[in-house]
């Protein structure tokens, strides 16, 4: 079972990365020519600087906000968390488009100078900061909710709340902070659409231009992807050193029931700041809705949508199902430290933090062959790409839930004579069903929001909604483009609402 799951992951995620290395001899001359010039390195440095700035800004806002949400008496903190998290599940490009309708020259409060500001490195940092800060907030909050209440209570007997927060809680969340740093850095360096839309030149755009643009030169795309490989390996090394074996295991939000740290006289000011940050991030969504309604964009949306929503939903649902199954088998093996599972866990993390152009180019190298057209020419290639990139989402979600159930429950099953299959099906699966469903949901949301991976290899005429939106932006009517963005927001909101309803129903039913 583990071997089959491992084989699927190896084919989906490792082959593309290895294929890049295998192509080296064939592309060596091109690589030397392309990488021998200053331009790619300049772009790479620019991308890394952008990623570093977004990461620092996201941590600066996300760590305190995570602490406020998890452990203080901030009013309506669950609602605040939900609202804060929502924009992360949208393609960042949708938010950039929304900010364009706010700050662009013809935007809601737009002037020449706000437009100049938006269409700059600063504008890209602003959009990506608002999009990715929830990653830091949520990982820190989840880690803090998992901290043993006894540790905190012992500290509160002898220290002020601020001291407890800075000396006990934040250090306890250090693995989550490192993971958040890596994820935000990796997501930002992979980001293609926001910098392109805001006219900021970055490395992934150079790769994309050689695969889908007027500079079509796949050999050069291979060459350009190469410097990103060592970067991915470096990120993985940091992840294995500081995060790997630690899993943030919390059962729902039970920790929120703990006696919160009082904010005291700071409460009104802190509440205002936290809510302001969260509400600002939702402004572009409301403006998009307004823009789409004004020009009749909403009415025209069905005509422009084509097959895009069903492509998104179908490829996302199939990929999420494969990821959930892989996540169950591999997540269980990782949680129980079965031999080989740690390497597969590392591979899934590598595929996620590897900049999207590397994975995309690798997938093209593996699957764009005559005999693999049934995969490469159909939605199947999207499924393969999504499974490769987002398997870690399912794996880590399931393993964190499995870690919460005592190993003795499985051992008890083994002592009754149940084999591995029966133990997995009858004991592990029912007890980790919540994790499997959550893993499916998260994986589905990641697939549906994906643009940076899919845009490199989507099959002709079968583009997902994100790609449709991205390609129409340049020459489609603004109201219709806004309408399509609203459709993407509505789709995400509907999936989240269904997921929340499913969990609420299950809680009520139990």
């Amino acid at each position: 079972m583990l071997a089959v799951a491992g084989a699927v992951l190896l084919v989906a995620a490792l082959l593309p990365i290895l294929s890049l290395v295998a192509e080296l001899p064939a592309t060596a001359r091109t690589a030397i020519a392309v990488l021998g010039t200053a331009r790619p390195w300049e772009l790479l440095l620019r991308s890394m600087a952008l990623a570093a700035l977004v990461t620092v800004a996201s941590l600066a806002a996300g760590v305190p906000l995570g602490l406020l949400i998890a452990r203080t008496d901030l009013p309506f903190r669950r609602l605040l968390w939900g609202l804060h998290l929502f924009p992360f599940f949208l393609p960042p490009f949708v938010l950039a488009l929304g900010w364009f309708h706010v700050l662009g020259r013809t935007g809601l409060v737009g002037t020449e100078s706000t437009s100049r500001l938006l269409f700059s490195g600063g504008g890209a940092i602003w959009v990506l900061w608002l999009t990715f800060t929830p990653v830091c907030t949520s990982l820190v909050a989840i880690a803090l909710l998992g901290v043993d209440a006894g540790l905190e209570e012992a500290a509160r007997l002898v220290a002020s709340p601020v001291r407890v927060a800075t000396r006990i809680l934040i250090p306890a969340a250090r693995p989550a902070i490192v993971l958040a740093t890596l994820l935000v850095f990796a997501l930002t360096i992979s980001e293609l659409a926001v910098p392109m839309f805001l006219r900021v030149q970055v490395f992934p755009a150079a790769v994309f231009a050689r695969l889908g643009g007027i500079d079509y030169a796949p050999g050069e795309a291979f060459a350009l992807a190469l410097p990103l490989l060592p970067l991915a390996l470096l990120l993985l090394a940091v992840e294995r050193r500081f995060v790997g074996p630690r899993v943030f295991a919390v059962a729902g939000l039970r920790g929120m029931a703990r006696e919160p740290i009082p904010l005291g006289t700071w409460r009104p000011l802190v509440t205002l700041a936290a809510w302001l940050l969260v509400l600002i991030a939702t402004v572009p969504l409301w403006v998009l809705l307004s823009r789409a309604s004004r020009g009749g964009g909403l009415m025209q949306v069905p005509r422009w949508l084509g097959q895009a929503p069903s492509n998104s939903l179908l490829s996302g649902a199939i990929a999420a199902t494969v990821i959930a199954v892989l996540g169950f088998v591999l997540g269980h093996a990782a949680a129980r430290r079965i031999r080989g599972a740690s390497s597969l866990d590392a591979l899934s993390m590598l595929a996620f933090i590897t900049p999207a152009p590397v994975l995309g180019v690798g997938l093209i190298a593996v699957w764009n062959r005559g005999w693999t057209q049934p995969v490469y020419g159909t939605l199947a290639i999207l499924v393969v790409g999504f499974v490769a990139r987002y398997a870690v989402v399912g794996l880590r979600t399931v393993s964190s839930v499995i870690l919460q159930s005592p190993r003795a429950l499985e051992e008890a099953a083994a002592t009754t004579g149940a084999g591995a299959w029966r133990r997995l099906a009858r004991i592990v699966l029912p007890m980790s069903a919540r994790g499997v469903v959550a893993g499916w949901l998260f994986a589905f949301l990641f697939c549906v929001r994906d643009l940076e991976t899919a845009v490199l290899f989507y099959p002709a005429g079968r583009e997902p909604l994100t790609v449709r939106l991205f390609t129409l932006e340049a020459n489609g009517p603004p109201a219709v483009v806004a309408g399509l963005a609203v459709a993407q927001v509505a789709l995400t909101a509907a999936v989240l609402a269904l997921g929340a309803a499913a969990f609420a129903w299950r809680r009520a039913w139990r």
Partner: protein
Amino acid sequence: MTPAIELENVSVTLGANHLLEDVSLRILPGELVVLLGPSGSGKTSLLRAVLGFQAPETGVVRIDGEPVSAQGRILRPPEDRGVAMVFQDLALWPHLTVTGNLDFGLAARGVSRPARLERIGEMLSLVGLAERARAYPGELSGGERQRVAIARALVLEPKALLLDEPLSNLDAPLKRDLILLLSELLVERRVPSLYVTHDVREAAALGDRLAVLEAGRIVQEGSLDALRAAPVTAFVRRVMEDLP
């Protein structure tokens, strides 16, 4: 007579720590041996070695004379050893009812449904839980859960039974009741058993023979009277003094 469980020169290490060192122990058919030892003495490691969750680096574990682990290798996986266990935290599956918990192992062993239901009914009557067959573990009292755990192990008619401090979290009256129940069930069924505890009173109430484990080694073995008469370590002397 072939021992039901036999450990011969078994050593288990974890990194640089020696969890068990050259341990030899035999449990004969129908015998109940109490393994007594302080926290961290290696009691749980010994059980895990017998169950097959841990392969001993050296030595052999035999069940009914057949080697099941030897020299770092698991020769027979836990599910094929026919050894049942009552876990310290009971490990009742929360998503299965009382019947479901008992049924699980029987179904895994291919027992037909009518036979399973019959055996489960008998066992639940024996432990006084016939009325609670449809309850989930979360709906049971502490004592009831304990009985389910014992019933779940015995319903399989195992070759041997291991009990890992199963009564450690109970109050005195409940503990007395359950010791009585356990004695009756084990004597009646003649299941060879290894009962692990750090409580000498439990040991005195149950055991035919005691083995004392300290720092991963069996330091003394014999009847309660023999141990009381000539304790070989400070720990054995101290625990024997606790007895009335």
